């Protein structure tokens, strides 16, 4: 079911919060989106904040903690990080923050590449259901959803949010 969430408004709010971090910070930081929805959001934010460093993309399929249960996703694309991770300030971007496991996997993967100076988390949607001690620094939308409701970002054009009830 598609809700009429105002995504451009949410993105603007996020870009504004990023701007508050200061020009120096933004000049030296690198943005990384998490496939697939996080990349779409990051592409928008990257253009809006005019970051200097090119956008990085992370596929966390190989770092998931539920691999032996749900198995392989055959459509994995390799991660692209067109900058050195060592001593880098990183803005990690994802579409939905729920349990926190995706962010945990993304951080593990980043640390395999090097030692970042800091990681800041920006998400379009923050919702209830955390299972790990992970929090977002920048949030576009706070949503309260029932346990059996699942939210999904559709894109890359005409970004929209869809809520489904899991059976």
């Amino acid at each position, binding site marked *: 079911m598609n809700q009429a969430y105002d995504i451009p408004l949410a993105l603007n709010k996020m870009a504004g919060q990023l701007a508050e971090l200061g020009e120096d910070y933004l000049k030296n930081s690198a943005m990384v989106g998490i496939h697939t929805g996080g990349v779409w959001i990051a592409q928008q934010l990257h253009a809006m904040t005019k970051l200097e460093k090119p956008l990085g993309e992370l596929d966390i399929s190989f770092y998931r903690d539920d*691999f032996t*249960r*749900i198995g*392989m996703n055959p459509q994995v694309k390799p991660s692209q990080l067109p900058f050195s991770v060592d001593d880098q300030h990183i803005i990690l971007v994802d579409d939905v923050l729920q349990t926190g*496991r995706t962010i945990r996997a993304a951080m*593990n993967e980043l640390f*395999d590449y090097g030692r970042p100076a800091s990681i800041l988390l920006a998400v379009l949607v923050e919702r209830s259901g955390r299972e790990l001690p992970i929090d977002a620094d920048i949030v576009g939308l706070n949503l309260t959803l029932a346990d059996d409701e699942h939210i999904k970002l559709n894109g890359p054009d005409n970004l929209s949010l869809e809520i489904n009830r899991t059976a």
Partner: protein
Amino acid sequence: MRKASLQIRKDGRLRHFLSIEGLNAALLQEILDTAESFAGVSAQSIKKVPLLRGKTIVNLFFEPSTRTRTTFELAAKRLSADVLNININASSTSKGETLLDTLRNLEAMHVDMFVTRHSLSGTSHFIAHHVEPHVSVINAGDGWHSHPTQAMLDMFTIRREKGADFGRLTVTIVGDISHSRVARSQINALNLLNTGEVRVVAPRTLLPAGIESLGVHVHHNLRDGIKDADVIILLRLQNERMLGATLPGKHEYYRLFGLTNDNLSIAKPDVTVMHPGPINRGVEIDSQVADGPHSVILQQVTNGIAVRMAVMSMAMQHNTGEEDV
């Protein structure tokens, strides 16, 4: 039709990878797609992913093979698995432990996967029948029967070179089909992927009885066999063949069946030349062809790692569950 078989679990996922026979086209495509993602990993600066961390993979080789064992070892390590290499001389097994006892002893050390190679056909099936439910078996070659990972890396290579539509391809396999587990697996895979035409070329002493029943056209003349071929796969000619009254010698074999630039021109202009290796220069293939622009022999080796990573990770999946966000 989804039902459990020795190699496939009830939910359709791979459990053992023993032979192409017994699998379905969808599963083969899934292996190829999964291999694509791992191919990217090997090209990254970070060549390791933690997918199989904490898992123990045993390379149980009863037949010596540095090449194959090394690629399996590398593939396992790139998945962050722990690897154990066990080389057992076939003769020492017959003097001492039975195959089953060797297996039980290793299983008692809580391993997760066996990669097996043996000189007797049917060995990996036998091992798969006798392992614990949570253990997977990958066949790295059993006798003349099957070498499914080689076939898959060959299919992967063909797909990369020629695209996903095998239906428009003519693929010719040249050499000792009789004694080749690689050829049998390749023929099975090509047919499962609906290849347009599969041909074999060999003298009669190198063709097994009823080979047509596997779904190939038989040629005894190289030029007939490779005419307008899109892919030519050459098999290694082993020295034993000359000793066993199967062939008169390398010289006549090369003259009749060796691939040279000259007879290569009969195939399609963009023909792809493949060989599972190691190559016998000047016997089944000329150096000029092996090192020439049509040859993808080295790419096959690279692709072998990604394909083996794919097969190992697919076989390690155990149950279905909810996806976590």
